[in-house]
């Protein structure tokens, strides 16, 4: 199966992987490819990747889906009618927007938003931000305005947190827990009667440990939130389902360093454990491009005797010593590049033996310039979509 075939039937493509492996750029490149194949595509990033915005000819990346301007595509020699959009999932937004939607009753909304616990949680806790981001993804998918959405996720461990955020928030607001606290609060109100019951004792102990206000706030928070639990659980279930649908596919992005590949293997196992469909492995900076170079086979002494070299260096006014040291270093660099490629080859092979479930593997070389424009993304794609078999392209 080719990478095109894997992507063509999907509506949601999620790129996961460690930090610093080029997830954002890869996501954008894949989205560009899909848009160029005639699908209305949105790339959603998590990081405020300013360079990506510039590459796409956008003044900024934010919550709003912005279309890559036709002139910008044209300038890069690409068809102007490609429908490529980009937006950033703003994880900085608080739970407030969500709350106002779920809590229809204004008095209830006010009660929750003024609760001390809510105030601290909505701004300070990573989980709630990730939850909001997943909510937004769900909404975008529901609206169905795009044929394909490519989602870039935060690095390794956080990416898993990110994907499981809906579950965790719902777990925290679990009915059993909420009921327990509310029940304890009630029976405590009755006075010292039931003090022998262990639940009450535990409850009091908690109060002593945390200071009285905290428990009071928590009870108040739970009391207000119990009306909303069903709504939250419902949404979380839907997001969970979305991540495991037929139309959804996961790509694991990595680079070839041994330690990073270890993390990729960890990721691979986790995705399988969570039942998320991993279909392709993309290895960025997998090898250095080494050009065929008949001249390079010669030793420095005989190179220096070549007319072409003499001619060229003559004009630059360089002395023999300088020419010699430069040529020696040039030859040395090629040796180093070959060594680099041999090492990555070994690392990638050993990863291959550990991962069986990624159906497709693509290798992208190390570029001498960072990818900063549409041409750069297209250049990545010429490698990414080059191999029909899903083997890493032969590394020279």
């Amino acid at each position, binding site marked *: 199966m080719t990478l095109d075939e894997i992507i063509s039937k999907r509506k949601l493509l999620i790129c996961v992987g460690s930090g610093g492996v080029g997830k954002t750029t890869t996501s954008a490149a894949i989205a560009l490819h899909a848009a160029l194949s005639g699908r209305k595509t949105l790339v959603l990033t998590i990081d405020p990747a300013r360079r990506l915005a510039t590459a796409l000819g956008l003044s900024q990346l934010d919550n709003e889906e912005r279309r890559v301007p036709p002139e910008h595509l044209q300038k890069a020699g690409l068809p102007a009618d490609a429908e490529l959009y980009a937006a950033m999932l703003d994880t900085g937004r608080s739970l407030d927007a969500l709350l106002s939607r779920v809590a229809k009753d204004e008095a209830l909304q006010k009660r929750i938003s003024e609760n001390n616990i809510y105030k601290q949680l909505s701004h300070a806790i990573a989980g709630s931000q990730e939850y909001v981001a997943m909510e937004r993804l769900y909404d975008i998918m529901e609206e169905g305005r795009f044929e394909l959405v490519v989602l870039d996720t935060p690095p390794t461990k956080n990416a898993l947190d990110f994907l499981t955020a809906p579950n965790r928030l719902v*777990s925290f607001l679990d009915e059993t827990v909420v009921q327990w606290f509310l029940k304890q609060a009630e029976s405590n109100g009755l006075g010292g009667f039931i003090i022998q019951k262990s639940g009450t*004792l*535990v409850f009091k*102990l908690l109060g002593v440990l*945390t200071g009285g206000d905290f428990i009071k706030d928590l009870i108040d928070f739970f009391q207000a939130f119990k009306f909303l639990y069903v709504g939250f659980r419902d949404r979380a279930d839907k997001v969970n389902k979305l991540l495991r649908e037929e139309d959804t596919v996961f790509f694991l992005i990595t680079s070839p360093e041994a330690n990073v590949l270890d993390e990729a293997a960890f990721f691979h196992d986790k995705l399988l454990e969570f039942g998320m469909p991993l279909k392709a492995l993309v290895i960025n900076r997998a090898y250095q491009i080494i050009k065929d170079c008949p001249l390079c086979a010669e030793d420095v002494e005989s190179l220096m005797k070549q007319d072409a070299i003499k001619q060229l260096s003559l004009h630059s006014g360089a002395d023999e010593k*300088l020419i010699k040291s430069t040529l020696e270093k040039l030859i040395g660099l090629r040796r180093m590049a070959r060594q680099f490629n041999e090492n990555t080859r070994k690392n990638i092979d050993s990863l291959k033996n550990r991962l069986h479930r990624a159906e497709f593997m693509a290798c992208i070389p190390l570029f001498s310039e960072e990818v900063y424009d549409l041409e750069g993304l297209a250049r990545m794609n010429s490698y990414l979509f080059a191999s029909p078999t899903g083997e890493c392209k032969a590394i020279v």
Partner: protein
Amino acid sequence: MTAGDMFNKRLLMFTGKGGVGKSTIVAGLAVLAAQMNKRVLIVEIDTKSAMKQIFDVPYLGFEPIEIIDNIWAINIDPKEALEEYIQEHARIHKLAQLITNNKVLRYFFKTAPAVNELVTINAIYRLEQERSFSGPRFDIIMVDMPASGHALLFLQIPQMVKRLTKRGPLFKMVDKYDRLFRDPAKTMLNIVTLPEEMPVTETIELFGKLQNNKDLPLGFLFINGVPEKIFDDNEAGLLKSMNVKAENNGDEAISELLFTGMDNLNRQSRFSIQMKRLSDSVELESIRAPRLSLARFNLAGARRLAEKLKLELGLEGA
């Protein structure tokens, strides 16, 4: 600030964008400090342990293990930290068990936000407090922190809990953590980065946010993966002029010969641009660490890195 100051602190924390090599810097510094007769504890937080790989030990858990002479390591699992926390703070053991045995509460603690961070901080605080009869059990505790955004959150947890509780034993306790984090005599927060576009952008943003949190004591900026400069200026000049001429003459054989060299010069200039961005916006003393080979970073690698860091930190005479 001198580098010597760094090894006189009790708590050295390291954060930065994911993938910049925080763990390798921590390992290198730990080896260096150990060579200077410091007893070092490396703390990892609820993660797939990097130290286990680097120092080739079969297991790292909640109890410090001496992995090589003078270096201990621990990987804090929040579940164990939570048990420890409860037992430590409910003075009467029976009562502690009441809480840990309560099914609903177990579940609540497992899922409640900020609990993991709080009990992890408690564990770090306890390690800092540990004394043997000759003094502190560890001279330096090096914490391999989560990536930038989460590290900030982590450092703000004590203040958040203070706002939540307002008074009582929990308040008093987190106040102690908070004061440790903000004590410039004991604590130093360091940033690790790579000289590449995205990590530099994130570093500049992180530095800005940390400046808003003025009382967190900042230390050094570690720039990892600094490429080796291959061509000196004369050689680079020659390469460039040869390349222009070869292109003008359409001499492919020569262009091929120069390709890897030009590729290297491009990379070098990219590096200079990022270094300039860092020095323009991040007012921290920077320490450079060389780019390491692709082979697995292990103890030998950590020793090599320690040598380089020693030079960079100006500790040769020490």
